């Protein structure tokens, strides 16, 4: 598939379906809900830090220029309990990110969804009973 950066500026009709599950900081002050972005890029670094992890990617734009983006992810402890390890998102892997760009226009986004470019799911096989140390495995009690 072609590498592309689609900066989709659309009016996003939000239903606000539910109260927030967890939000360490105010979305509206930091990210622009009118600037949804889809990025396809190669992981250059993953920061496993609190309170949020950050995934750094290099994105090749249509004109061939490479732009570095950083994408906010979940808290490292939560990811660990979901079975994530540092090998889960290795440097060099190509991923597709959907999210919202920072209000200040920086190449920074809130990561709504991340998928490997080859179609593999980030959470493949890590869910449900038996997920590593999620406390659901009766044999571990």
């Amino acid at each position, binding site marked *: 598939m072609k590498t592309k950066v689609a900066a989709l500026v*659309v009016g*996003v*009709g*939000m*239903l*606000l*379906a*539910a*109260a*927030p*599950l*967890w*939000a*360490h*900081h*105010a*979305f*509206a*002050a*930091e*990210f622009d809900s009118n600037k*949804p972005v889809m990025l396809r890029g190669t992981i250059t670094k993953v*920061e496993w*830090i*609190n*309170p*949020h992890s950050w995934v750094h990617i290099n994105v090749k734009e249509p004109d061939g220029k490479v732009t570095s983006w950083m994408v*906010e*992810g*979940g*808290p490292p*402890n*939560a990811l660990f309990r*979901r*079975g994530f390890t540092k090998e889960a998102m290795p440097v060099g892997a190509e991923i*597709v990110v*959907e999210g919202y760009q*920072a*209000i*200040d*226009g920086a190449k920074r986004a*809130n*990561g*709504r*969804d*991340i*998928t490997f470019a080859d*179609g593999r*799911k*980030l*959470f493949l096989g*890590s*869910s449900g*009973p038996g997920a590593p*140390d*999620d*406390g*659901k*495995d009766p044999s*571990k009690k």
Partner: protein
Amino acid sequence: MIRRCLASLGALAAVMAVVSLASVHAGGQAPTAAATTQSAAAKTWTSPRTPWGDPDLQAVWTYEGATPLQRPKEFAGREFLTDAEVTQRTQAENEKLAKNLAGADGRPPLKESTLERGALNSFWLESGSAKKVSRRTSLIVGPDGRIPYTSGMLKRAAAQEEVHAGRYPTPFFHQTWLEFDTEERCLTHGVPGAMLAGAGEGPNQILQSPGYVVILQESFVDRRTIPTDGRPHGNIRSWRGDSVGRWEGDTLVVETINFADKSHYRWAGGILWRMATQTLRFVERFTRVDADTLDYQFTLEDPARFTRPWTAVVPLTKLSVALLESGCHEGNYASINTLSGVRNLEKAAAEAAKKEKERSR
């Protein structure tokens, strides 16, 4: 392309409508079945004891339920779901989990997004299993099932919902880092609400020794030390208040007063009730009802914020995990990013005002 399943996502809207009833505030969870189940369980289960004879509550606990704190309007006047509604909610939770596990394949395109923008990174936080469904329509008990805010507090809550809806208010707050909410500053989770912490905040661990109970909360390395040796309350106000505990049969009862009134929730609307004011009296009851369930009940009494005391019943689930380190400020980029974002909003607003002024000349 990545999304194959999206054609069928018309159904998702319907599912989400149901799910939205079920999804909670802070990672909430699952009243197993409140009083009825608990009393039944209590008949067949004996609470373990510590070597010194107190009921043993020691474990890592979290809330994994699908029941919201407040009762949705659809269930006004009704405290419990019907069998059919329980089945429907269970199916909805299972479908929601399946869609989340499918990642982008299970979500609508951004153009049609129904993402709750306040729920930062919710994609990352799914527990990997469906939330537990109980019969309760809300964690808050009683005929109303809602937080009885005073009119002033209702106004504040409404203003905060605006922020969650993406309408950042003017004049802008977040002028300085001092205006950040208590949790944005990585200060504390606070005492009210801490036991409801979900995947994002990390679970709670209860530890006991003779005369003391300690509760550790993962996210902000929070800890509460609760004496149970009969001593009276002290007279120092603090962020976490002054807790005194006692045992009533198998139940630990903790009363906390002397909060310092420093907690600050400017935008986090769903957790406004957690504010610790000087007039707050917070009473908790912890009862282990089976090996893996802690019946947690809490009552908030605060005439400055609520028109009457209110109580919630929360079934907490035992986890077989250890608490992890959580150095909240090690990479709190949000501090810088938020200030930068707000400066940008101010600049845009000033330019818009200038243009409007020129146009009206």
